[in-house]
């Protein structure tokens, strides 16, 4: 095999060409990795919202809290042996609505925000909840708090602000909370009964949640309540529910981004092919010499393919370094499942890094293969005579 050092040095000699080609690949990898990171961010926001021993109960036929309605009898859903009460409460009922807010950036644009009516028990149900600033809303009043991901994004939806749910019935925002990166951070939380009264739906909740004694108790619990004729509900494990919620969004983002990156990669691969072709042409004398020294055709082929891959991985690594800077920003997107915005971050996971590097290797391989085949066919006699 031709020593790798030969390839590395060859790349180093043609600095501008190497930089230009690697730069093209870096840009493609940047786009590819950014889309993967956004998809991973969507998944993280949703998945950390669930616990394996939590069950969410929706009306049969509903896929999301927004369209679901469970009667006020929901409290009975907590009276089962499989349920482990949290702070003495078995089933926590909540109301989720989506409201239209005016963006605070002055553009006059509108977007949708989820508002969750909850109770002190509902808040206690989520140990990751933390008040970041301001104070807790007083239960039973029109006070509310805003998730830190959307605080300040909408007019009036920030600590000290107020926004109307119905004429002359505003919610007043008194605090800001975090929830360990979960999608709750893109919601506004207010009082269950006040919000239900404001929207005229006092007799139902959107969903109920219970905590089980152990995740293994789920099947027994599900059978029991889904067969109970008093209710027409279905039970879903919380992580499962949120996974389904994020599937569409993260799949959409990753699919779209990957499609764009693959299109872009055609241009970058052609760029790599041009560079490698040039390298082969300029070095035909060297190749001839190597062949004359006894290196096989296969060795030459491998050497040039490796050089192309090395070039591509160099570009990929540069792209990855720059894409990591995106971890500092977040991006508001529409979740079609909830009709409201979730603000998600760019999440750098090991999968993103590995898939980006694999993507670079593929680009190098495809771009370098044909020039490498050409190189392996160089006739030693003719090359050295030229």
């Amino acid at each position: 095999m031709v020593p790798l050092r030969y390839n590395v040095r060859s790349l180093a000699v043609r600095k501008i060409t190497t930089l230009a080609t690697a730069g093209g690949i870096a840009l493609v990898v940047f786009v590819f990795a950014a889309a993967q990171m956004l998809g991973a961010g969507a998944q993280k926001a949703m998945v950390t919202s669930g616990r394996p021993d939590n069950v969410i109960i929706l009306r049969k036929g509903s896929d999301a809290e927004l369209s679901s309605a469970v009667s006020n009898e929901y409290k009975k859903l907590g009276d089962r042996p499989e349920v482990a009460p949290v702070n003495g409460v078995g089933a926590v009922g909540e109301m989720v609505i989506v409201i239209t807010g005016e963006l605070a950036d002055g553009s006059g644009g509108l977007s949708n925000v989820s508002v969750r009516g909850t109770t002190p028990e509902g808040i206690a149900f989520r140990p990751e909840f933390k008040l970041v600033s301001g104070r807790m809303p007083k239960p039973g009043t029109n006070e509310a708090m805003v998730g830190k991901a959307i605080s300040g994004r909408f007019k009036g939806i920030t600590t000290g602000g107020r926004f109307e749910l119905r004429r002359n019935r505003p919610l007043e925002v008194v605090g800001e909370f975090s929830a360990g990166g979960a999608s709750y951070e893109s919601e506004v939380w207010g009082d269950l009964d006040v919000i239900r009264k404001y929207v005229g739906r006092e007799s139902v909740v959107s969903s109920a949640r219970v905590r089980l004694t152990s995740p293994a108790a789920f099947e027994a619990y599900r059978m029991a309540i889904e067969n109970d004729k008093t209710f027409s509900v279905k039970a879903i494990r919380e992580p499962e529910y949120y996974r389904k919620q994020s599937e569409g969004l993260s799949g959409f983002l990753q699919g779209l981004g990957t499609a764009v990156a693959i299109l872009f990669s055609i241009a970058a691969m052609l760029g790599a092919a041009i560079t490698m072709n040039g390298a082969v042409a300029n070095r035909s004398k060297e190749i001839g010499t190597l062949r004359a020294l006894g290196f096989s055709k296969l060795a030459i082929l491998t050497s040039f393919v490796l050089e192309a891959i090395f070039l591509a991985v160099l570009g990929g690594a540069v792209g990855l370094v720059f894409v990591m800077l995106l971890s500092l920003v977040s991006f508001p997107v529409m979740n079609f499942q909830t009709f409201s915005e979730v603000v998600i971050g760019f999440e750098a996971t090991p999968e993103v890094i590995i898939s980006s590097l694999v993507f670079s290797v593929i680009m190098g391989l495809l771009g370098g293969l044909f020039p490498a085949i050409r190189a392996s066919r160089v006739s030693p006699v003719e090359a050295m005579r030229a």
Partner: protein
Amino acid sequence: MNSTTYARRNLFRRRGRTILTLITIAVAGLIFNTIRTVDYAWKVGVNEAAKDRLATRHKVSITMQLPKRYIDDIRDPAKVPGIKAATWANWFGAKDPRGRAQFFAGIAVDHQTWFDVMDEMKVEPAALEEWKRTNNGAILGDLLAKTLEVKVGDDLTITSDIYPGDWKLKVVGIYTPLRKTADRNSLLFRWDFLNNDPRATYSKEKIGWVMSRIDDPSKSAEISRALDKLFDERDDQTVTMSERTFQLSFLGGFSAILSAFDLVSVVILLIMLLVLANTVAMSVRERLHEYGVLRAIGFSPGAIFGFILGESMLLAAVGGLLGIVLTLLLVNGVVGPAIEENMGGFFPYFRAPTAALVMAFIGTLVVGAASGLVPAIGASRRKVTDSLRRVD
């Protein structure tokens, strides 16, 4: 042999490299044009959508409903002048229990007036008569009817995201589009059928939104304000907007994706720049000796500069033109018509706009100039003796 001939012949000295570069520029141009087309198609819907229609919905939330009696206020010419006709609808959250259609709009509408206002949907008068007689009658868009494999006279059972149980409908008609903006994937059934069902007490005597047709599109802002003022003192306030804005309010967050697209379209130009710059740099490096000879026989540095810049701009121009041809063939010829056919509701007009093509071509020329500039300056400033001495 003049200098243009020299530049042209130089282009094909390394035929393989030139062809690859041209393909790269053409493909990059195609991608750039496609991205701009998506962006343009999204925005152009505003112009294609009916301008004489207004949508009125609950001010606070797209999911909250309005009292049914609001429709009488809206229709009263004494209260708001300028409204020709008004109809209403409720979102049903329809789902196909057999999973043949992934997502479609299922709405309960006022069967007396719906098609008068939504005049881009064409339906046979006989079907409308049948609808009046059939309580559970439904009229479907032609594309949806195909997906659900139903024809007039068939029974159709749907379920809902919002209301429990099975809903048994009977297909009484199929509507076809008269304009490209018509959504051909909607299922319409009678509002009174929903309203009289005990499972829908939540929306008893409630309506989701009102669609009005106005006399004079230039007065739409005025009429919108007048409409909202009408309900300003009531419990449920309204917000009235153009039909297009209404549709987009369901997909508002999509605009963030579009701005990301804008950014990404610049990235493809950068990739194009790098590839072209590399090609030019490689060619120039190989010909340094030759440029030295040209200088030695009397060509000025300016002439060398011109050769190199001209060559790179010629490459860019040819590649850019190829990209435009590809765009016209693929986007306007194949993809565009398919998108208009299937997603006309969102993309009524999916064709690469001339302005974007011109912009792309100018962009390519700028890339050509930028790629050639550095090598051209370098080669023209090089000392003749250096160039001639160099042995590769």
